[in-house]
């Protein structure tokens, strides 16, 4: 189903863009893991897929870095779910990563689209 080579994506996960995706999605409100995987899949138009064996290790890593915080939330009539929310440190990292990413995209745009400017 994925439009991008999953091995390549794995490598990206290890780098930073996957972290950026997760942090961005948690900026607005806390979400649980399944929610995150569906959002990435649908919002990317099916181009990006997080497998279960990449997604959760990534969440746990971000949690160990204290960029996000997971808590069990119980709702009446449902099983408890683990929701992740951004910490203050996570918010700071997100801002920084966004700026880096924007600068990177701009740099790429200048190179690849320079002649039309």
């Amino acid at each position, binding site marked *: 189903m994925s439009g991008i080579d999953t091995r390549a994506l794995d490598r990206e996960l290890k780098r930073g863009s996957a972290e950026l995706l997760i942090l961005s999605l948690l900026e607005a409100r806390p979400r649980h893991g399944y929610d995150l995987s569906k959002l990435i899949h649908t919002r990317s138009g099916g181009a990006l897929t997080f497998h279960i*064996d990449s997604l959760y290790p990534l969440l746990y890593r971000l949690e160990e870095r204290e960029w996000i915080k997971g808590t069990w939330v119980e709702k009446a009539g449902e099983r408890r*779910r683990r929701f992740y929310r951004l910490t203050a440190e996570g918010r700071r990292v997100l801002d920084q990563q966004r700026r880096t990413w924007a600068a990177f995209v701009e740099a790429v745009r200048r190179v690849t689209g320079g002649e039309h400017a």
Partner: protein
Amino acid sequence: MPDFTSDVRARLASLRLSATREDEIVEELAQHLEDRCRELMAGGASAEDARQMALADFRPGDLLAQQMAALRQAHAKQPAALAAPTERPLAGLWQDLRHAARIFSKQRAFAAAAVLTLALGIGTTTAIFSVVYGVLLKPLSFAQPGELVTLRHVAPHGAGSNHGPATFLTYRANQRSFEAIAAWDTADVSITGRGDPERVQALQVSAAALPLLRVRPIAGRGFDPEDDRFGHPIRVILTYGYWQRRFGGSDAVVGQTLVVNGTPAEIIGILPASFTFLRTRPAILAPLPLPENAPDRMSFDFQALARLKPGVSLTQANADLGRMIALLPPAFAKLELRPDVRPLAADVIGDVGEMLWILLAAVGVVLLIACGNVANLFLVRAEARHQELATRVALGANRGRIARTLLAESIVLALAGGGAGVALAQAATMVLRAIAPAKLPRLDDIDIDATVLLFTVAVSLASGVFFGLFAVVRFWSPTITTARDGSRSGSAPARGRTRNGLVVGQIALALTLLIISGLLVRTAVATRQVDPGFVDPEHVQTFVVAIPPTFIRDDDRAGRTFENIAGELARVPGVTSVGLSSSITMDGENNGNVIEVEGEPVLDPARSRLRRFKSVAPGYFETMGNRIVAGRSISWRDIHERRPVVVVSEALAKEYWKDASSAIGKRVRWPRPGAPWREIVAVVGDERDDGPTRPATAIVYWPLLNESYRWRIMAYAVRSARVGTPGFLGELEQAVWSVDRNLPLARPETLDQIQARSMAQTSFALVMLSLAAAVALLIGVVGIYSVIAYAATQQTREIGVRMALGAQTGQVRQLFLRQGLGLAAVGIALGIGIAVMLTRYLSSLLFGVGPVDPMTYAIVSVAMTAATLVATDLPARRASRIDPIVALRADV
């Protein structure tokens, strides 16, 4: 809804999560899978299809655990047992050891290769150590063996290292350092009157000997002081073995009579089975009577042992002996004797000590090579786990903890190797005892006992730590970058250097052992080329016949009897020649004395050189195949008419008269008042009487019945093509007994066996060192093979690129051959250097070849290069057959 908890839990099993954390993750991921499953079913999938599709999100290769392994939570401390306040390092080590054992039960091929290699190394080391311990280090089987000493003299002029009545009686009367002093000697005696006559070894001891050794007879009693006096009726004590063999272990034997050398002797006691004395193998113990007063006579024909008084040191004992040397009769002063009190144990060992230590060093080298090999296997294996180890360090895992994990794994392997090695060593010592190399004393003391096992455990642990440390040091500080970018090849060149270094070391050590065994092979060849003074030794049967004066008092009659026996032996079918001599070449008899040569200044007997004396009868030189260089052979008429003639060896003739023919007609004599001058009638070819690797002995051959030899113990040499065939020896015995039914035959041996015995020590060293070298070569070659094979798999992609770019298979092969030969060249150069340094210490074992023999070095180096080529070519060929497409696809 399917339950996914067990699917998730199985995928986390390899991690060390805390129990609560694991439960949380299982719950979270199972929920994820259920959500997915529900969604798929809502889309129309069957429950089972939905379940399978949801689980397909887990990709092959256990990615979950791999990704999780980098997390701190995956390395939770195990709950401490029984709420111990802090982690106990030893408990942790035990846990690591069990963990390692579990890991190896799954990696059987790796474990088997490592354990087998270590078993070879540790097994051979244990086997040789058991010999070294049994022969050299184990205390003698007497009470307080450390107090037992042997009394000797340093005799600068050759005479007087042992004892005679003068020294012994002086010391016994005047000593202050010893609880007691006892004299001892061995003699072959004839036992008659009970079935076939028999010639056995008697251990003659003074009465003090057994109490001093703390040995009590199991029946009867020991000797009394009156047994030490001349003229007292002879009494004997039986050893346990002889009592069982000859008397069936009957208690009634005490008090019975045994005819020893024709004289009846009362049996007064039986020794315990545990009794052994130095290198003797006696059947009976007999008294060693001594004159009452110390005479001036300078005879030195027995030994003395003593027990130190408690608290007396060897130095004090030597000082005491030095004081007493001054009390000897004045004539002894010119011998310039000095005291030499040494531990009795040193006497047992003799001259094999040096050889055994060399052997132990050699197998130690084999063990070192084996460790190098396993270290290499270990490095390769640890490399595959580099990512895991590096990540653990990056995340702050305790480095000591990682070192302990690695060491636990190496120690588990080493202990398993040690266990297998003990089995190997047990088999080896059984073989060793079965083949019983001559000259190896205390063979019965060689065993895999508690001390040897302790040694094995220590060696195994040391080996495990040694080869484990290579991996620990290499992975002690994996760089953080290595962990972050996920590459496994961060410090590959460095690790390659370690592996190459290990292989070079193995080749160098294996080459050293090969050179040493090569030198011993050349020694053996050179030894074979020496003219020993006889030919075709396998066709000469020898045995000893003694005619004590108690059997035949008259010398002439004894002479006639010897002649008659020779005549009867010559009539046995197939016998071509018969001769007799008081000593056969290389049989270990070294009866010697000085001679006086007419016209030469009379030298002080104590200062002139000892010549070997042999008494011979006609046929001896002819039967042995020795040449008569000049003159004529002696005849029975010479003997019976007591003609004053003598024969000398070529070495002696050349010493005095430059060449053999000039010696004929010259006269020599035994330097005693009244001894007649004897004319040299023949010069015979040299005998290598002290062994083929020693210079030819200067020998004087007296005709049988002469003034210097009264013992009448003669060895017959019988040449026949029938030697060694069944029944031949029996026919010879019958021929002897047809002359006199009471004469026993002793020590039947072929000349071939006597020769082999004289070379036993060199042969033993040769066989053992060759075995060690062969094992070293095998392990070393396997080492090269595995390094090249590993390099080939690591460079699959590079090979693919080269071949895609047009490289020929031959070029690829050359690439690896160059690598292998490069390692071999460095190893060989290093090995030659080590050999040049070490082989000087072997010169006592070498003969006819220098320690730095260019030929041996060259042949061994070429052989080593060839072995390297084969070991390299196998993986090189495989690498050159790689399909470039497959190679490029390989994700390295």
